[in-house]
């Protein structure tokens, strides 16, 4: 009897302690009690979570002070080895931003040029040539990217009537069809560093993805772009540099 009583008292005490502890963690920014915090909380700095731990001790003043950072400038992505084209694309973009882009597009810390590199970009060629073999895959990937990255402003049909514009958030997204004079290199430059009201998208898409998008948006200017007939010949001779060739 005595033993059961003691046991009961222990259980009661434990429950009360748990409830008290439970009420202690009613802080909305805490995710609650953990069984073994040393297994739950990484000593290393994880993505968006820094527990401020140094050699087994926690220092609240070092707790997450930074989050959501762009990659350091001039860092190079690694796409793997093998394909020489991809290896080439790992290198930094050869065209520099204009010095005025610092104030207009916030591109501090980039390498700058005093020249109008946008005008020079007119001669840049799309390294991914469209062929009857790869065009379907290229446009499939392009559509996926376009839906995620561009569609909310530029619209599903590239007419500048995306949901952002239709909801009245802002005006003035041009239609691709009106800008058919742009060269591939200039479209790339605009996506990479931004143009006018459009921000720089180099932190969102890789260079390979931008070139894929360049192919994709050309469709809005010429519906036959990248389409092939039965013999594998291009349906339309596009005047731009990324002209389609037949492969065997």
């Amino acid at each position, binding site marked *: 009897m005595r033993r059961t009583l003691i046991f*009961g008292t222990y259980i009661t005490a434990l429950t009360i302690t748990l409830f008290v502890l439970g009420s202690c963690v009613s802080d909305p920014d*805490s995710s*609650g009690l*953990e069984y073994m915090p040393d297994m739950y*909380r990484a000593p290393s700095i994880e993505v968006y979570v820094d527990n401020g731990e140094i050699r087994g001790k926690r220092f609240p003043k070092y707790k997450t002070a930074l989050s959501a950072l762009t990659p350091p400038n001039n860092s190079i992505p690694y796409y793997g080895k093998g394909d020489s084209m991809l290896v080439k694309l790992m290198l930094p973009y050869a065209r520099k931003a204009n010095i005025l882009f*610092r104030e207009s597009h*916030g591109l501090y810390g980039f390498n700058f040029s005093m020249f109008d590199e946008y005008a020079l970009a007119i001669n840049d060629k799309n390294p991914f040539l469209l062929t009857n073999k790869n065009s379907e895959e290229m446009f499939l990937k392009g559509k996926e990217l376009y839906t995620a990255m561009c569609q909310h402003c530029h619209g599903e049909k590239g007419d500048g009537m995306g949901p952002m514009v239709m909801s009245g958030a802002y*005006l*003035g997204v041009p239609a691709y069809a009106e800008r058919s004079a742009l060269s591939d290199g200039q479209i790339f430059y605009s996506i990479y560093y931004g143009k006018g009201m459009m921000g720089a998208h180099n932190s969102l898409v890789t260079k390979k993805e931008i070139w894929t998008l360049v192919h994709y948006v050309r469709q809005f200017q010429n519906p036959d772009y990248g389409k092939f007939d039965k013999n594998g010949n291009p349906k339309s001779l596009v005047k731009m540099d990324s002209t389609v060739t037949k492969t065997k």
Partner: protein
Amino acid sequence: MKISNIQRVKRTKIRLIAIFSFFVFLFPTSLLADGGGLFKAKCATCHQPHKNGTGPKLFEARKRWEAAGEGDLIVEWVKNNAKLRASGKSARAKEVFEQYKGSVMTAFTDLKDEEVISILDWVDAQPDPAAAAAVGTGNVTDGASETTEEEEGGNMWMWIILSTIFITIILSVGGVRRQLKISAGESSTQDDQSYLSEFKTWAWKYRLPFGLGVLVLVLSIIVTLFQGLYRINVVENYQPSQPIVFPHDRHAGVNGIDCKYCHNSVTKSKSAGIPTVNVCMNCHKQISGEGKPFAGEIKKIYAAAGWDPSVPGRYTGKTKPIVWNKVHALPDHVYFNHSQHVVVGGIDCKQCHGDMTKMNEAVKVQPVAELNKIEGNIKLTKPTLTMGWCIECHGAKNVSLGDGKNGYYDEIHRRLRDNDKSLYKKYLKDGKVSVSELGGWECAKCHY
């Protein structure tokens, strides 16, 4: 007959022309040109009626030129600003160019004078939306949420205070009773009896019901205890505060922005990624929410991005980080990779995060009951973000059936088909090859 016919036709033609030209002279030509349409087609890419963008706002731009004494030159500026600047006859042209030297205005030599005027007429007729919105809008929503929070907190304290008062009253009444008994000399033999011994005699007197009561109490305490233990580290409904009030329903719902635009590393990395502030600025450079209740929140983005929204807006280069609170945080001993699930597994965001297009509060861990309500989701029973939940889904999810769309799983399917047909058939008994059958229940898949 023939001649007179021709003459008649000629006459009517002349009359028509006369009437037409009369009307043309009667109305100012600028009204015939569609100013609004022209504005949207030619100007709106860089100019807005009431806000400075790439170029200055066009509302009363003509007045500003007139104030500079060059009201007639604005048309020339619009048509070919480089020529006007080169001619050197306009000081205003130089001023505007210096102010916005980041962007050179395109020449519109194809526009007629009256078309330019019609655009300016149309812009001047547009009412200012910011001024209209500023009237009579306070911080209504914020105020409401604060009061409810306060009420909840107040309730809690009220209960604690009330219970303390009651306990004190009960104890003091008991004490008074005892004092009275002692002073009245009622209980001669029991006057030293403590509460405990009094309780013991009482408990012995009613030992059967008392024993049963204690048993029930102890059992219920044990059950509650275990239930409590099962809730430890279950983070359903976890909703930490965030530095900026971010309405997902407005961004992903009304404005139709794809999840992957802001959380763009989801297809490439372990982490889905919180957008960096330059991604916010891709739209918010234009959308300042001026005069709206949430303008203060957008100001926080500007402070973080180092954007000075005065005229003309510019980046100062002085940035500071926004520190968001992580919501879906898994323990350190679990490995979870977003790109594996989204790209290879083809899982939709809403399977785990719920329908964000309707989420108008801070992000929280959606309870599994909410997730099950969403169409197309695999229905699960265990609480969100627990191991049981992961395991359940790995057992239920059908992975691609070697249809050539999925490199990694197609290879596994091919090997299964070619090497172990009986096992493959066993797997296909329920009509699918689940993740668990391809090793999704191996401990080392997630714990290593």
